[in-house]
């Protein structure tokens, strides 16, 4: 099958040996998450192990589209394994990053990397086409993620000048490239097993959630570098270039007729960086020379590089990590700090805010009940944030001295609060806005239902923006008195018409309180789980550019989703996969993941939000209003959702509806054999049965 390199690299760090897994063994899953979950299932016999256990397997997977001309679908890499961030159980989880890594891996001849075991001392993995070496990382250990990458660049390319062709071997006619190796690295945070530690690639591509930086640190793995000069074979080259150019012409922004000049998380967005510098109260964009910066193959970059180099390639949460900075430059420095030290921007924001509130309550501070060496008088300054980041990354006082506070907060916010005896109280009051699995809030979960339900029914903050633009566009329209992209009725029609196999059920996008626990919303959540599991996380279409539901460039504002995704995948692979085939495969992958969580200890009784979600009215995470689609007097409108509560009893009823829709045991949430069998997962049912975790028929 085209689009594949044909082999997956399996690295056993304990034995310092590498092996090859033939990709064809897992091609039925297409790529990315599907392959990762299937490989994890096969290789990890005891799925109840902790994320730090050497037997934990981390998969780093590409898709057939990686490295090709498929727009906004060429550059994502899916990372999976048992994480160390979530609570009370560190779920089998996923993260995902962009840039150049996945494409370079394909050019080197690999469809993915599987990491297992633990090296006896720090190592890095050096991949140059077919040649793979596990090398000592003594010179790299301790370096920040940027310095480590640059050192590896020079090492791999033997300090050759980067404006020339560089040969991968010494022979005159050897393979050559002008490209730098793509490196994925951990920083000091990962080395010190910080549960908020990320994997960082280039300046600011991060596999942020899950704490995979710490998992790598526990395996003594500092970095993976890859440089490749080979092909990604394409089944129908003519079809692919034609599809790309047509997609550009019909659905992408038009430089000669821009409909918008700001970034949107959809296909039609112009290439404007997704910066939140200065938020709140509003977005600030540095006034200096800059360019958009895009991942490989993307039609619309969502990052930027600047004349000062500050905040290069950063976007979204990374840029708002230190929103209280006294100056924009300090904020940009702070953004670079968390990338260099390799820390999860989202949790770092909420951790710092939590500490600040406790400090203002005189609970926390130098010599206080919670002895924290940070002096909050310096809050907003550069010195303060540098010390805070180092404290978290090095588990000390931020100045190089041992301190139990730094050691504890490196365990993450929830575990620190538990140690301080505050967890239940602060989750009940909402002082800790961590609605599910010990993960901080991102989108308001009682309002954006597919986000809230999808996260609690899964393993993490889903961070999938498929329906998020409904709110953003409606908010902009309401606040600034502008016209929304479409009327509520028009939008609901365009979206739901594409949501196979539930297409046409308009009530899937009725976010009103009377509908929020309904079968329709269960379908919305289910469709979202399936679409993202396959098209985004396995075929690896980018979350910020897909799906293409509503598109102002297109006739009737009807975007390309449903047609475009399979068109690109089939042009590359030669398959004849339909959009619905992908959704069905997404259902299978979602069920496989759910089976893994079940083996880890998941039961419906533990699937509940933090207490504040049931007791406190919803508040805006991103602003004072949150408009979504709903019905009033039989008419579709945009209405402000904020202020409502989640009803605990009705949420339980919703879970029953959702489990029923999934074909899971409604009393336990366990998968049923009949359901798994219908998906071709009998072997999964067997393992569940052996562990007394199979649902009742």
């Amino acid at each position, binding site marked *: 099958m085209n689009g594949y390199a044909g082999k997956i690299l399996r690295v056993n760090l304990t034995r310092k040996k590498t092996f090859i897994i033939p990709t064809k063994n897992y091609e039925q899953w297409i790529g990315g998450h599907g392959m990762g979950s299937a490989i994890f299932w096969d290789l990890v016999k005891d799925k109840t192990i902790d994320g730090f256990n050497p037997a934990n397997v981390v998969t780093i997977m590409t898709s057939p589209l990686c*490295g*090709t*001309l498929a727009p906004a679908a*060429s550059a994502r890499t899916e990372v999976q394994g048992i994480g160390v961030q979530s609570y009370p159980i560190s779920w089998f989880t996923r993260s995902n990053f962009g840039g150049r890594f996945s494409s370079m891996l394909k*050019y080197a001849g690999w469809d993915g990397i599987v990491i297992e075991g633990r090296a006896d001392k720090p190592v890095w993995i050096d991949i140059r086409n077919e040649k793979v070496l596990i090398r000592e990382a003594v010179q790299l250990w301790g370096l920040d993620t940027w310095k480590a990458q*640059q050192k590896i660049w020079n090492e791999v390319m033997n300090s050759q*000048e*980067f*404006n*020339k*062709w560089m040969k991968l071997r010494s022979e005159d*006619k*050897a*393979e*050559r*490239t*002008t*490209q*730098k190796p793509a490196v994925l690295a951990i920083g000091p945070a990962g080395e010190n097993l910080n549960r908020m530690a990320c994997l960082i690639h*280039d*300046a*600011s591509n991060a596999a942020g959630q899950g704490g995979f930086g710490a998992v790598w640190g526990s395996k003594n793995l500092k970095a993976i570098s890859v440089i490749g*000069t*080979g*092909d*990604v074979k*394409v089944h129908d*080259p*003519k079809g*692919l*270039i*034609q599809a*790309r*150019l047509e997609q*550009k012409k019909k659905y992408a922004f038009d*430089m*000669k007729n*821009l409909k918008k*000049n700001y970034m949107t998380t959809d296909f039609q967005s*112009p*290439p*404007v960086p997704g910066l939140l510098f200065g938020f709140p109260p509003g977005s600030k964009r540095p006034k200096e*020379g*800059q*360019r*958009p910066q*895009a991942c*490989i*193959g*993307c*039609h*619309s*970059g969502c990052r930027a*590089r*600047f*004349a*000062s*180099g500050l905040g*290069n*390639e950063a976007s979204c949460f990374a840029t708002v990590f230190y929103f209280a900075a006294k100056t924009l430059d300090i904020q940009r420095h702070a953004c670079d700090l968390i990338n260099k030290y390799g820390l999860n921007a989202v949790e770092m924001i909420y951790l710092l805010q939590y500490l600040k509130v406790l400090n203002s309550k005189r609970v926390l501070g130098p010599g206080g009940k919670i002895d924290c060496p940070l002096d909050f008088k310096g809050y907003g300054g550069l010195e303060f944030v540098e010390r805070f980041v180092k404290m978290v990354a090095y588990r000390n006082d931020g100045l190089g001295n041992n301190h139990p506070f730094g050691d504890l907060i490196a365990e993450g916010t929830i575990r620190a609060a538990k140690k301080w005896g505050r967890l239940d109280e602060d989750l009940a009051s909402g002082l800790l806005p961590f609605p599910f699995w010990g993960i901080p809030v991102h989108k308001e979960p009682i309002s954006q239902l597919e986000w809230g339900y999808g996260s609690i029914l899964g393993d993490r903050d889903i961070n999938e923006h498929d329906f998020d633009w409904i709110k953003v566009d409606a908010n902009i329209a309401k606040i600034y008195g502008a016209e929304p992209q479409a009327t509520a009725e028009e939008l609901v029609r365009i979206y739901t018409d594409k949501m196979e196999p539930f297409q046409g059920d308009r009530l899937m996008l009725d976010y009103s309180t009377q509908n929020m626990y309904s079968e329709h919303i269960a379908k919305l959540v289910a469709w979202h789980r399936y679409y993202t599991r396959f098209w985004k996380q396995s075929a690896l279409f980018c979350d910020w550019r897909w799906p293409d539901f509503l598109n102002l460039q297109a006739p009737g504002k009807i975007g390309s989703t449903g047609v475009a995704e399979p068109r690109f995948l089939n042009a590359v692979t030669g398959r004849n996969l339909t959009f619905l085939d992908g959704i069905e495969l997404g259902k299978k992958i979602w069920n496989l993941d759910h089976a893994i969580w079940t083996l880890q200890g998941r039961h419906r009784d533990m699937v509940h939000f933090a207490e504040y979600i049931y007791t406190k009215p919803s508040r805006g995470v991103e602003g004072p209003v949150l408009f979504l689609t709903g019905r009033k007097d039989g008419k579709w409108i945009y209405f402000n959702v904020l202020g409502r509560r989640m009803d605990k009893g009705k949420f339980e009823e919703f879970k029953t509806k959702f489990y029923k829709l999934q074909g899971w045991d409604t009393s336990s949430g366990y998968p049923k054999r009949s359901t798994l069998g219908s998906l071709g997962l009998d072997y999964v049912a067997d393992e569940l049965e052996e562990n007394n975790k199979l649902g009742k028929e």
Partner: protein
Amino acid sequence: MGNKDEKTIKNENSGISRRRFLKLSKDMIVGIGAGGVLTNLVWVKKGIAAIPVSEGYLLVDFKKCQGCVSCMLACSLVHEGAANLSLSRIQIIQDSFEKWPDDVAIEQCRQCAEPACVEACPEGALTIDTKHGNVRRVCKTKCIGCMACVEACPFPPSRTIWNFQENHAQKCDLCVNAPFWEEKGGPDGKQACVEVCPVEAIKFVKETPSQKGEDGYKVNLRGPAWRLLGYPTD
């Protein structure tokens, strides 16, 4: 055309509006003659020939490029039928940690008025394609893989590139021969890199750019729309 007006460029290029005169040594005449490309040359007098200039050029704006390398992917796709950055005739080189605008370089073939690659080839495998607007091209069946043309290109990284898979040289042909694309290429057609570039950072022109330095080829393509998106245009 960047910071230069057309008049300035015309002056710099005086004498090459249609042809570039080329002094050839006796050995080179023999070499070229043996290679069978005499038809490409217009003999002015003994030892001096004129090479017709290309009727098409790619200009780029490296300050605008978003580094997606779609141009490279398109180039290798339409020519090779596969995605391969190393076989792309246009090269984007970038550094995440560098400051704008030094973080990105776009290096495209200049279709030189005095093509060092053509002059260097001992086999006449590099030709001036008079049927297709004088585009400088490599005939891969004639190429013996000596790499003289690759080494002769004075612009790093060499714009005549080494196809290490098939052991021959290759270079930008402005998509004259793009077997995996339905569109007509060449100076009178379309070029895949131009068509695919999402931000219009590559432009095709017929006029010969200034041959001195890089200013003729590295130009400002940032217009009002670019300013509307919040980027500098000066």
